[in-house]
């Protein structure tokens, strides 16, 4: 990609390179750091954990300066994602400073301020070579159906994540990028997943000028998808949720029409009425596995773990979109079966498009949009949680307390 513009001078050092002030700490046997640790459903704490080490020649160790809790982290927190092990550190949205690099790393140097996509990817497998960075085949031994993700259970490869002081970053020459000088940390951290995924969700909708776009979910990804839909020429953007404070954000931040589904007997009928009974041209599921709106679906998935996810928003998207329309799915679902209304999708001739966002593929364009002021991702940040208070952070976000939309995690908050 012409965009990266990174120096590619060969590093001749045959061994690991470490910043001088940290050499002692990293090389000391038994060195520890502070990290968020999962202790079972609904339980997390901060522990002293062994420092990550270079395990592959193209690894880097990054000192985390800012991280975030993603809505999809809540699926782990609630025990929904298979093979989520006690002791794992979550966190796939983070930025930091390169602390140490492996001997084959050429594109990054110690001291670089970097943003790291949530995808772990090799760059060279059949999928990465074609830009499907979210589907890398060389980084996740545990499953072929999903790529590698930081801090997201063993189902996505068993990597510890960035809600910690330090994190191992595999394929340092491929994934991370230097943060542009002009970019704020809070904007940068949201580019590692939430903004990129929302923008990607709008792209998957194949929006053309004048389209009516319905976005299910007014969380961070839904807000960014709604905002991005306008950039792609949407004629109307409608956001549906049940949390009034988030719908308010959808109106002010994303300029969207909003509907609180709890105020209607049947939101699908309402969607038909508001589109002159045609249906939306494009519907985006930005909710995923813990969708509300149908108690049975929610309880069988989020509480009893008998489904890979509650497909309420997805089923509403299928039923609300017009025949021949497109449903884009960027909400996260687990690998177990879900009760999706597939017959309706078939009978309506829908195009269903979905994937884990290939984050780095979005960055050049998103950097432009942030620089031009079309997108200001940090506008949705509501909470900045010191790492030491991570348990409260998860509870506030999970229980939707205090108007929480996007919580950031600050290691070494002092």
């Amino acid at each position, binding site marked *: 990609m012409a965009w990266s513009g990174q120096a590619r001078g060969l590093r001749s050092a045959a061994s690991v390179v470490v910043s001088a002030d940290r050499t002692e700490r990293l090389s000391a046997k038994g060195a520890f750091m502070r990290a968020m640790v999962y202790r079972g459903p609904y339980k997390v704490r901060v522990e002293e954990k062994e420092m990550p080490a270079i395990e592959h020649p193209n690894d880097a160790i990054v000192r985390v300066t800012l991280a975030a809790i993603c809505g999809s982290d809540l699926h782990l927190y609630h025990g929904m994602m298979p093979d989520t092990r006690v002791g794992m550190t979550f966190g796939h949205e983070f930025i930091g400073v390169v602390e140490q690099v492996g001997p084959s790393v050429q594109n990054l140097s110690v001291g670089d301020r970097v943003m790291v996509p949530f995808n772990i990817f090799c760059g060279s497998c059949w999928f990465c070579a074609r830009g499907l960075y979210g589907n890398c085949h060389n980084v996740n031994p545990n499953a072929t159906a999903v790529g590698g993700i930081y801090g997201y259970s063993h189902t996505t490869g068993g990597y510890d994540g960035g809600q910690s002081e330090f994190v191992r970053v595999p394929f340092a020459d491929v994934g991370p990028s230097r943060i542009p000088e002009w970019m704020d940390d809070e904007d940068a951290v949201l580019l590692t997943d939430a903004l990129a995924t929302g923008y990607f969700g709008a792209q998957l909708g194949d929006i053309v000028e004048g389209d009516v776009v319905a976005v299910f979910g007014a969380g961070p990804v839904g807000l960014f998808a709604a905002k991005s839909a306008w950039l792609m020429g949407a004629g109307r953007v409608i956001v549906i949720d049940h949390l009034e404070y988030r719908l308010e954000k959808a109106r002010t931040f994303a300029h969207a029409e909003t509907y609180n589904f709890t105020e209607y007997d049947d939101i699908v009928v309402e969607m038909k009425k508001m589109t002159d009974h045609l249906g939306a041209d494009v519907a985006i599921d930005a909710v995923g596995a813990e969708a509300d709106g149908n108690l049975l679906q929610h309880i069988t998935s989020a509480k009893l773990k008998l489904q890979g996810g509650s497909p309420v928003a997805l089923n509403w998207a299928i039923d609300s979109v017009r025949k021949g329309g497109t449903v884009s799915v960027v909400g996260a679902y687990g690998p177990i079966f879900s009760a999706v209304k597939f017959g309706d999708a078939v009978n309506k001739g829908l195009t269903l498009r979905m994937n884990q966002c290939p984050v780095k593929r979005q960055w050049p364009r998103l950097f432009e949009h942030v620089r031009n*002021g079309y997108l200001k991702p940090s506008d949705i940040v509501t909470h900045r949680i010191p790492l030491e208070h991570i348990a409260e952070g998860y509870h506030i976000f999970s229980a*939707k307390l*205090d108007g929480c939309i996007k919580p950031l995690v600050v290691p070494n908050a002092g």
Partner: protein
Amino acid sequence: MAYTPEKPPIAESADQLRARIPGWGVDLDPKDRPSVPKLQYQDDLSGAHWTFPERQPEKWPRERSIEHKFLTPVFGTSCPPKGLSGMLRKLAYRKYSEGRAAHWLILIAADRVDAWENHLRSFATLHPDNPITETGVLSEFSRHGVASRLGRKRTDVKHQLLDPIIVAGPWVLAAAGAAYLGRRAAARRRPG
């Protein structure tokens, strides 16, 4: 409308939308979007200077999907499998592909076992699990737990009532079970 050939008109023109919404239409051309076309060959392999990566050392037999040809060259090393949960996990990976429900259901069961193994193990340490601090539930008082829910028409409040049962229920049952067994053992020891 849906029953006639023409699409319902949009209330605002392109010019009105452009004036109202910063950046409206800057990505108007569907062919000029970052993920279009879907399978777009990346000539520079995104910075990779290998066609197959060097292999990371395998420090213990790493569980892997049987749908893979071999262990991937790079993998996570967090939390190696151990105990009963580890045995269940190894079984799920060794015996069932990702296409089988048994694979995932065993892994989910192993997660529950893992939590209990670790709770019990923590009681033999100086840092036992503490459901109060680890659930962050005290933020209910400092972060407007009641005001965030009451009168807000939130549909999730109904099932949030289940959360304390899910979290505390097994602890209460375990404590009751332990008390019951303790009483029985004491009664057996009593003479006569």
